[in-house]
Structures are given as structure tokens and as C-alpha cells.
């Protein structure tokens, strides 16, 4: 018996998260290179959640020096480091969280100049994240990243409000690890091998032992076969009446000549289970609309030598569904636990796994053909080619959950925002209906204020004595300036009414405060 090795240090350290995203997900994280713009409370809290689980590397860009105010919101600075570059100190303290992570910083020039000079290579990153970046800088950055096809995450913490916005040209979702999925058992389009196996079971000649341990899946299929014969149908029961008919047949099958009174008093676990799982077993197996959309997607239809591997595999899967799959996705191959003896269960698992393997093989072959057709196969490294099968296997297992995500670009946001406002139903002035959009609009006004006055409304040094009157006066001035800006920016009546005065007032109150607990969220 070979010695079972214990896990290594990293596997122990990351154990709790490996149980969520697996070794595969961890590898992807460790290959991640993130750029953070801003070294404030918000950005460092974001980075913390990436560094702790083992992000590959990060670069933090910020030209400012640490102030005493920073010490009242940012965990990754220290009062002894006031007047030192924020980027350098936060980088150092973040690296202490996890020595496996590589971190660098850029403390000059400021991000605006960096963008103007155009010498900084953003293409080296997988993701760029901004934290409370002023809008005019953001717009320049976002259009640059859009053309580089680098995903951008825009985060903002403003008083008690926070926003997150994602800009991504195209993002592929492959291993979603969703909760609570419906098993892929296909009673409505049963596997040939499954049918053969069921046909070898004759309910009339079962021993008592065999009957007690009959797996619910076979029970359900036998019931279905009988129902279909009775009603001369080839699909599954749909209406209430049909379901009742089905349940009646199920009831009949649960009787066995060898059952005595004591058997009948106890419930038959397998038959109870069969009844209980009807809703998730008697389902129509179809291709989800998300997948059909992928099949119809332009990137799928216009496959080329330059296409991402994702679209090659989607194409291969599409070919499969049009041929061997007979209109269905590859079999997932997983069978949920059911009350039965080991052999019966294992036999069922083998049937489904066998088919899954076959389907995967077929799709793999289609993939190779496609890659060859588009002159991609010969240029692949031997390593890449070797891992293709593994890759196809992952796609097949997750076939139902594959998806693509595309967002709008930020540059066109004002127009989209105005269009969105036109679509909001005119609400009454009751404050019940504060939609999130109202906050977003309010923040947009604050951005406009910043453009004009180079600070946010309400963001001015507070008096350090008890004199709050001058603060209050300035606050009122800011508030009315803010409302004025609102009138200029959103000129239609409909747009005007979407500006909620109480929200605008509250945002003024915040003065772009970076409350730590909000940043931490």
C-alpha cells in the first residue's frame, strides 16, 4: 500500500477556498495580474481579498502621500508613515498578508500624466481596478482599456453608499460551480444503455430483496414506460391529470407479493424517494436558452483563426448537438445518491459516465477538426494540445452553465443613463420608491460638481474647533450648487424628476467620505 501523502503547506493554507473553486480555480487566481488605481481604503480592502487567497501579482498606482486623515480609514497605512508615498506603504503592508504574492507600486507620475504619456503598459494585466477615481480620468482610462480588451472594475465608496461597475468586452464563464443544480438524467430522452439496463429488470419477477433496493431512477423509468404505453405517448406527463396517472402506476409498482404486514407499515424508502424527486426527474431535457444564444452568437458563427478557444469549443459542442447529440448537450455524467444497494448504484453511475465519456470524445474530435480547418492546430504547443482533452472535459461537465458576459463601455454612459431615465416610470414623490438609479444619478451630479470645482460637494476641511456654523454654511452653498448642476445636466422634465432631492442632500452630507466599513464591503 503506497503511503498516502499529506497535503503540502500551500494546500493546507488554502484548503478552505480550494473547496470552493478547486485546484483549477486556484491556478487561475495565481496567474492573475491586477492593477489597482488608487491606494485608498477602498482599493486596499479590495486588494486584501485578492492577496489573501493567493493572487499572482498586483501593481498599485497612486502619487499621493499619506495624511493623518488616511489613518482614520485605511488599514494599510500607519501614522508613523505620514508624508510617505501611499503607494509604497500600502504595497508593503499588503504583501505582508501573503508573502507568495508579488506586488509593485508606481508613485509617480499621477495617473492623469501616466495616461497622457502613454508609456505605461496596461496590457500586462488581466484586470484593472479603480477605487474612487474622478470621472474625467476614468473615462480616458476606460476607453484605453476597452481597446486593449482588458476588463475594468470601477469601485466607489461614498459615505454610506458604494458602487461597483464592470466594463468588459467579453468574458467567458466556464466553471460556474453553481449551487443546487438539476441532475442530468434524461428520462425523457433516455440513454440507450440505460434503457437496455432497465429492460433487463422485470418487475414481475423481482425477489423481495431486489424490490426493496430498486433504485428510484429505475422505478421512475419503469413507471414512465408503462404510462407511455397506456397513453400512447412518447413524452413525459405534463398536466395534473397525467401526473396523477403516473403516480397511480408508481403506487401499483410498489406492491410486492412477498410484503407482509410489518413491511407495509414501514414505508418503502426507495418508492418514497421516487415520489419525492418526481419534480426534478420528470423534466424536459433541453438546451438552455443561454447556450442557444451562444450557438447563435456572432463570435461562434464567424469562427476564425483569431478566435478565442472558448468559441472553438462552443462550435464543436454545437456540431455535436446537431449530430450525435440529437438536439441535446453532452451528458454531464453525474448521478445523485439514491437509496439502493452499492452494486445497483454503481451500475447506474457507470452507464452515465460511459456516455459522458463518449460524448466528450466526440466533441474533442470535432474540436481538433475545427482547429485544423482554421490553421490553429499546427501552431499549438504540445503542452496546449495535450491539455485540450482535459479542457473539453471541463466544458462538457459544465455545458449547461456556460455563458459569455459583455458590458457596455463607460464612455457612452451619460447617453445610456439618460435613455434609462426615460424608461423609469414616473414615480410619486413618496420616498418608498428610492430606486438605486436615483443614487447613481446623484453620484453623477457629484462627479459633475468635481469637474467644476475640483472637489466633491461637502468635501472640504472641517473646522477643528467647535465652530460648525461656517461648515454648515458651506454645506448649504454646495447643496444649492449641486442642484444647479442637476438642472444643467439633465434638462428634460422627466430627467429632472428623477433627481431626488433627499438623495442629493444626503450625498452632500457625505462629502465623499471614505467610511472604512463601507470600503470593507
Amino acid at each position, binding site marked *: *500500500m503506497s*503511503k*498516502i*501523502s*499529506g497535503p503540502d503547506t500551500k494546500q*493546507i*493554507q488554502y*484548503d*478552505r*477556498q480550494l*473547496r*470552493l473553486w478547486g485546484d483549477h480555480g486556484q491556478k487561475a487566481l495565481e496567474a492573475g495580474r491586477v492593477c489597482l488605481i488608487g491606494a485608498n481604503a477602498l482599493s486596499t480592502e479590495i486588494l*486584501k*481579498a485578492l492577496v*489573501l*487567497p493567493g493572487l499572482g501579482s498586483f501593481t498599485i498606482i497612486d502619487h499621493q502621500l499619506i495624511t*493623518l*486623515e488616511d*489613518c*482614520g480609514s485605511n*488599514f494599510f497605512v500607519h*501614522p*508613523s508613515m505620514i508624508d510617505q508615498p501611499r503607494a509604497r506603504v500600502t504595497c508593503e503592508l499588503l504583501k505582508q498578508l501573503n508573502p507568495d504574492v508579488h506586488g509593485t507600486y508606481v508613485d509617480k507620475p499621477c495617473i492623469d500624466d501616466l495616461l497622457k504619456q502613454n508609456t505605461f503598459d496596461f496590457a500586462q494585466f488581466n484586470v484593472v481596478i479603480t477605487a474612487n477615481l474622478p470621472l474625467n480620468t476614468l473615462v480616458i482610462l476606460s476607453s484605453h482599456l476597452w481597446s486593449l480588451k482588458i476588463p475594468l472594475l470601477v469601485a466607489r465608496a461614498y*459615505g*454610506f453608499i458604494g458602487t*461597483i461597475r464592470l466594463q468588459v468586452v467579453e468574458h467567458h464563464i466556464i466553471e*460556474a*460551480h*453553481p449551487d443546487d443544480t438539476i441532475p442530468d438524467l434524461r428520462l425523457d430522452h433516455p440513454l440507450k444503455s440505460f434503457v437496455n439496463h432497465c429492460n433487463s429488470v422485470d418487475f414481475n419477477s423481482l425477489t423481495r430483496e431486489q424490490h426493496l*433496493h430498486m433504485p428510484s431512477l429505475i422505478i421512475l423509468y419503469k413507471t414512465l414506460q408503462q404510462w407511455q404505453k397506456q397513453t400512447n405517448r412518447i413524452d413525459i406527463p405534463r398536466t395534473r391529470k397525467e401526473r396523477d396517472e403516473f403516480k397511480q402506476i408508481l403506487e401499483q409498482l410498489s406492491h410486492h407479493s412477498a410484503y407482509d404486514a410489518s413491511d407495509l407499515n414501514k414505508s418503502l424508502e426507495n418508492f418514497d424517494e421516487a415520489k419525492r424527486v418526481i419534480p426534478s426527474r420528470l423534466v424536459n431535457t433541453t438546451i438552455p436558452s443561454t447556450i442557444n444564444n451562444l450557438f447563435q452568437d456572432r463570435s461562434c458563427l464567424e469562427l476564425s483563426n483569431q478566435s478565442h478557444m472558448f468559441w472553438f469549443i462552443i462550435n464543436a459542442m454545437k456540431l455535436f448537438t446537431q449530430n450525435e447529440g440529437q438536439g441535446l448537450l453532452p451528458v454531464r455524467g453525474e448521478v445523485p*445518491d*439514491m*437509496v*439502493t*444497494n*452499492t452494486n445497483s448504484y*454503481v451500475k447506474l453511475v457507470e452507464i452515465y459516465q460511459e456516455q459522458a465519456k463518449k460524448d466528450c470524445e466526440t466533441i474533442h474530435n470535432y474540436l481538433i477538426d475545427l482547429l485544423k480547418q482554421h490553421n490553429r492546430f499546427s501552431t499549438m504547443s504540445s503542452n496546449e494540445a495535450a491539455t485540450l482533452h482535459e479542457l473539453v472535459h471541463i466544458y462538457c461537465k459544465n455545458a449547461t452553465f456556460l455563458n459569455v458576459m459583455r458590458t457596455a463601455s463607460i464612455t457612452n454612459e451619460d447617453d445610456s443613463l439618460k435613455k434609462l431615465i426615460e424608461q423609469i416610470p414616473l414615480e410619486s414623490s413618496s420616498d418608498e420608491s428610492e430606486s438605486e438609479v436615483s443614487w447613481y444619478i446623484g453620484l453623477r451630479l457629484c462627479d459633475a460638481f468635481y469637474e467644476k470645482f475640483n472637489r466633491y460637494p*461637502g468635501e472640504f*476641511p*472641517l473646522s*477643528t474647533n*467647535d465652530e*460648525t456654523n461656517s*461648515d454648515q454654511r458651506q*454645506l448649504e452653498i454646495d447643496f444649492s450648487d449641486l442642484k444647479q448642476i442637476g438642472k444643467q445636466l439633465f434638462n428634460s422634465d422627466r430627467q429632472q424628476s428623477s433627481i431626488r432631492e*433627499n*438623495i442629493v*442632500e*444626503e450625498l452632500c*452630507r*457625505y*462629502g465623499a*467620505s*471614505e*467610511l*472604512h*466599513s*463601507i470600503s*470593507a*464591503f
Partner: protein
Amino acid sequence: MTIPDDDSTKRKRWTHLRRVLERAGPFKDPNFEPSTELLSGIESVRILIIGAGGLGCELLKDMALMGFCRIDIIDMDTIDLANLNRQFLFTKTDIGKSKAEIAAKFIMNRIPNCNVTPHMNKIQDFDASFYSQFRIIVCGLDSIVARRWINSMLVSMLQYDENNQVVPTSIIPLIDGGTEGFKGNARVIMHGYTSCIECTLDLFPPQVNFPQCTIANNPRLPEHCVEWVTSILWPKEKPFGPGVNIDGDSVEHIQWIVEHATKRANEHNITGINFRFTQGVVKRIIPAVASTNAVIASICATEVFKLATSSVLLMNNYTMFNDIEGIYMLTYPPEKREDCPICSNVPVRVQINETAKFQELVDQLIEKYQLIAPLICTQIDGQSKTLYMTSTQQMLELTKPHLRMTLQELGLTNGIEMLVGDPARASSMRVIISLTSSMETTTAK
């Protein structure tokens, strides 16, 4: 290191907080008065954080950076390597040391003038006089039993006026957070007003237990094989000596279990057993990441801040969070049970047939109130009598025979009051028995 404690430095340092404390806004709590005094107000508030693990570390950081500087933290655990992916106040060199102590040290170092007092204890080590020192209590616990215990402790400290209403100043708000993988929840509990932990026990998912016949005879999943080794083979073979129980953290123990579980699996054509899987089953490991803990802790911290300052309306009062796919949040107030055995301040009434055996009564109590190991006493003819107790072998022997006796034989008459204690409670529950005659149907609910 300390930084100057003068007003002007303090005011400058906490500029971000001051903007919401010194200014009113339309979303403030009606009791809120913006004032420059509020900042010092926060500094005088004593808060208690229970737990210095995934949530605890985040909570401590958040509270310190929201201006609180008189913080106590309780945790009985020591630091493990597997904690380091999220319990960021600890490093590899801290492994084996007290979580509470190291967490306190780190924070006091990083955030000067913040005072953190660690307690390497179980929460049960303290009594009401300890807990009453705090204005607000925040929990980042990993056990339901512990939550129920602190919940009942705080209820036992409530005072009632002549109309049986809770005196508001006797309430210590309890903020409770919990996480599991990408899911989490946070809630604000004001005993007497909102639902409490006991009111909403149904919200906790039931524990997964495999039936014995599956384990013994019909294994199908790799989990069944592991459970067979831990519950049947290990007690039989005692591989590391008599009386040596399974230590989920021992690499050797787990390796032994993996070896034998794999053998059983192979006999039954089952695959999937490896070290990580096996340890997960043995320790009932719950997956965890830093980000979920950060979210839930920050929600709790914001509520603590609101409670201490009234600067904004409180959460009403239970939030669920899930970021498996996108971001999902739902906030709603679960109903407070009028008959909650803990927070409703009326004794529990139990109906039982007059000819029933004591065992039946005990079973009913355990099932209905999700008790773990009840301790039942009563007063008969002015004398205190222990009816049932399992905490020591001696008491178990002494009280076990009571189970077979009828209620009559034990002297339990109609309307008699019993006191029922349990590890899940800090104080006993009053239970009054109502005896029904054999003619009436007894509904066991």
C-alpha cells in the same frame, strides 16, 4: 506607538467619520443630533467582539477604523495554518498562539490609541456581570450552540416593567454574523423587539447525517466509506491506542482513515477518496474565503456604528448575502415568535398525557426546543429535586431510572413548574406541565 491624543489631532484623523457625525441628512435616525461630541461619544463606547477568526479579525479591524477604541475580544482557539487564507491578523509565525491575543496585538500596533483586551476563553466562562459592561455585542461565531447561549444570556439580563414590557435601557443589542463559502447573513437583534436567535432556529440548515444502514451495508458515495471508517472501524480497531479519539487535524489519523476508506471504496467500485476529501468529511469542514467574511463583517460594523451614533437608520433587521453568481442580497425582518422559549418572557407550557412516562416528556422537550443535553429540576414539597442530568457519569446513573418512571411516580402533578437547562442556554427555561387525561387526545406539538 501612540499618536498625540489632543482634540485637534483626533478631529483631523477621523475626518471621514466626522462628515456623517457632524452633519444631518434625510436618512438619519430621528434621534440623531449632529454634533462634534459624537466622536468622543464613540470613543467611550465599550464593545465586545465574540470570535477572533474569519469574521472576528475583520470585525476588529472595522471597529477600530470606525473610531471605537475600547474593544474586548473573546476566542478560545489557537491559530492554525488553514486559518491564514482569511484570518489576516495572523502570520505563519503565530501558529499555535492564542487568536484573541495575537489579534489584539496586531490591531493595537497598526491603529494607535485603540485599546483591545483579549480573552482566551469560552463564552461560557463569563457571567452576566461581565457581559453587562458592554454597550453593544457583535458575534462572529461558528457554532449554533454558542449563538443560542449568548442569545439566552442577553435575554436573562433584560429587565421588565410593570406591564411586562422590556425596559429599553436594559437591552444590549446583539449583532450576529455568519458565513459559509460565498453565502452569509447578518442581523441586528434587540431582544424584546426583534426576533432572536431562538425564534428563527429554522433558518439554520439541518445537519447532513447518513443513515446507519447505508454506512454499514450499502455504501454508494465516498462519504459513506469515510463515515464507515470513523464510526465503525475506528472504534473497533482503536488504531492509535485505546481511548484515542479521531483528531481531524492529525495528518496520521487522516491518512489511516484514507487508507481504510479507500479499501472499502475499492471493494464497492466507489472512487473519489483523497486526503482533502476525507478531512473535509471527518471535520465537517465548511469552505471559507476572505471576501465573504469581509462583506458580512462590514455590514455588522456599519450597524454597530449606527447603533452607537444614530447617524443613519438601522438595518431592519436580517440580511442574507450570496455572491456565487453576481451579487444577491435580501433584507427583511423575520417574525418574532410570541411563544419563543427564550425571548417571550412567558413560561413554556407543555401538554402531556397523565399516564405518560418521564422519557416521553424528555423526548418532547428535546425535539420541540432543539435541546442537546437537558438538565431538568423541579421543586416537590418544598424540596429541590433533580429529575434528569447527563453531564457527569454519576448523575447520569442516578437519573436514568427516572426515564422509565411515570410522571405520577416522580411526583409531577398538573401545573407543576420545572426548570430546564441546556448547553444551548445560559439560563434555565421555565416549563409548566399540563396533564391531559387519557380521554383527551394529546397533541404533542
